[in-house]
């Protein structure tokens, strides 16, 4: 699904984040990218989203060279991703409106898709994520958890095959975060999505990632990877495997510093 081949990325100020970095993600895999702040994990996500470009080397998604945001990739950010002047319903429908705006041109929207009635694709997601009662509210009027549900609904309404998330639940309180983590796992399993979640929290990486990529201090040339196949639902949080995975990750993070 994703192939990074000898990718190099440096910021304009010269700080090199990735050098000769290669990584492969198979279709349907659930990855967590873990690392301390400043390790380049958000940069990696933006590279995958087509919002930044490697200085050399190449990134391919589903076989195609990535040179701009790809219509079938969904991106969910920590915060500020919703239009403050649009209601929840309008925000959920935004991606579909953007697609209708361009038509199925294969560049901004998939070429094999027509959207005759966007409402038919919006309402089920509002219902599914419990947003119908607040559908006419603005983002400023709802809770952080509801905002993040709106962002998820907006992304999934576009029927993505790859979902990228940048610290999606970091600013939420613990019960809300756990609820949304459960939802994320449920949706991933149900829709067979390939997911990449970027997080700085060891516990979140161990819960959401069936495979975990650990980034260290920049520049990253190689990265440690961990297999965590048991992470298929939130009950995993109570298991000894989960606890030992967390401590392995913690040791590896400390060793990398």
């Amino acid at each position, binding site marked *: 699904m994703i192939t990074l081949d000898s990718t190099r990325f440096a910021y304009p100020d010269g700080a090199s984040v990735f050098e000769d970095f290669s990584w492969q993600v198979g279709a349907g895999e659930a990855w967590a990218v873990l690392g301390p702040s400043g390790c380049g994990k958000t940069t990696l996500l933006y590279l995958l989203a087509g919002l930044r470009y490697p200085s050399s080397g190449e990134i391919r998604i589903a076989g195609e060279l990535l040179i701009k945001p790809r219509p079938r990739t969904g991106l969910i950010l920590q915060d500020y991703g919703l239009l403050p002047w649009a209601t929840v319903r309008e925000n959920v429908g935004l991606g579909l409106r953007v697609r209708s705006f*361009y038509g199925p041109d294969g560049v901004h*929207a998939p070429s094999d898709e027509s959207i005759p009635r966007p409402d038919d694709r919006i309402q089920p997601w509002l219902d599914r994520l419990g947003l119908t009662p607040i559908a006419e509210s603005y983002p400023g009027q709802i809770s952080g958890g509801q905002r993040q549900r709106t962002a998820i609904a907006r992304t999934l309404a576009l029927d993505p095959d790859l979902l990228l998330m940048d610290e999606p639940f970091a600013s939420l309180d613990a019960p809300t975060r756990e609820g949304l983590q459960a939802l994320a796992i449920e949706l991933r399993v149900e829709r067979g999505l390939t997911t990449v979640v970027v997080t700085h929290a060891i516990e979140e990486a161990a819960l959401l990632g069936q495979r975990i990529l650990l980034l260290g201090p920049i520049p990253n040339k190689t990265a440690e990877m961990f297999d965590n196949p048991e992470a298929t639902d939130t009950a995993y949080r109570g298991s000894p495997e989960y606890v030992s995975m967390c401590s392995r990750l913690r040791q590896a993070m400390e060793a990398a510093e």
Partner: protein
Amino acid sequence: MKRGQVLVAAIAIGVVWEGLALIVRRPILPLPTLVIQSFITELPRDLGEHFLASLWRVIASIALSVALAVPAGLILGQSQRLDRIFSPAIYLLFPIPKVVLVPVVLLFFGIGDLPKIIIIFMILFFQILVLVRDQAAGLRPELLHSVRSLGAGRRALFRFVYLPASLPAILTAIRQSVGTAVAVLYVAELFATQRGLGYYIYFTGSTLFDYPKMYAGVLAMSLLGLGLYFAVDWLHHRLCAWQFTQ
């Protein structure tokens, strides 16, 4: 602010005026009742026509400023390179009191509506340009990234992000400039025209010495400014409902 409060304030101002007029007892300060009477009788005659002439000039200026300043502000707001080139010029031109240019504009554009419209345009243009530019430049990168990730290119970003984001700035700029615009309109209408409230006020006051009529003109000009202010306020509440629900 409620309608009742505005009404009470209007009555209070009328009472103070009435008291002052009774104390001064000169033709130059007629009683408000007399002025309102004159306003009502004159409105269907000349005053209405002059009012419409002034209204047209202000509305045309607002439309022209929005049409030119909004795209310019949006372009400068999203391109740091262009903004660096143009912002020194804007920085110098913005604070110039445009009213001093009235004679120059009249010289170049002659008689008729055009020079008046251009003068008000110059005031509104910079106000809208600066506010829209700052609004567009202040948009969070996260918002732009996430909308781009939904497939939006440059055109869709303009349509779905930059334009709605700058709407409050446009309305704020117009509301802030309405008072100045009407004041400058008065000055502009003193020259080379026989239509408009500025001309009407000057002519009835300084030539005819008909002070109730002159004050009726002043009242009409105040109502013009007030009406525009309320209209923009109403549009703001209607079009930017999200800003008023917390």
